[in-house]
């Protein structure tokens, strides 16, 4: 017979399964796998990223 602690653990585990973060582990197609690595290994930064970083990362206090 389960004790009270086990019941609490079961309850928390069920909740954790239910509300868990979605899309944490994803599988991608072979060509997307290559695409991700090609972009990540490139030294060419997306100009949109550079512009946005200047726009948003700067005004802090």
């Amino acid at each position, binding site marked *: 017979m389960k004790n009270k602690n086990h019941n609490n653990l079961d309850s928390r585990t069920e909740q954790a399964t239910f509300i868990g973060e979605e899309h944490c582990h994803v599988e991608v*197609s*072979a060509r997307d796998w290559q695409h991700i690595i090609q972009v990540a290994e490139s030294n060419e930064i997306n100009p949109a990223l550079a512009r*946005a970083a200047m726009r948003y990362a700067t005004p802090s206090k």
Partner: protein
Amino acid sequence: MLLRASEKILKDGTKILIQRLEETHHRGAFTCSRHPVLADFLNKHALQNANLGLSRTYVVTLPESNDVIGFCSLSNGSISPKVLPNEGKGLPRYDLPTAHIGRFAIDDKWQCKGLGGTLLFFALEVIVDASERLAAYVIDVFAKDQVAADFYMHNGFSPLRDDALHLFLPMKHAKIALAAAKSVE
């Protein structure tokens, strides 16, 4: 020290505070009419997920208020290929670690004020900071719709070719861009 809170100034001069979600934050008035499920997550699950170690949620408030006007949740993740490509010698054969932006939303009343971009770049600062201690190869996010995907692309994310709503940003690039922006502060 890990980045936990930051005060920012929007383009119209409004000061905002971004910090970890706490019980004292008012979440009930947050509305996201395009995707009510996001407000539901904030109200019902964000704190619980943080307590369980499933994600960390950061919220935006005005400095003098506890009302949440925007939030994002972050966690770790991984990406793997369904099938390893035939060509591409030298490609990794194992999962790639990711920093995952799980949920991201701005209150209906605060749309189009630059709040989304400001929150996104705060999230990138948190992620880049954390990646010095816990490696992640890319930052990834699933956009709820094409409008959201366009927002991420406008801010430097790239969509996958076979899933336009799954977008990524290499950690290396995020570090370089943030360092460049900091150097002109």
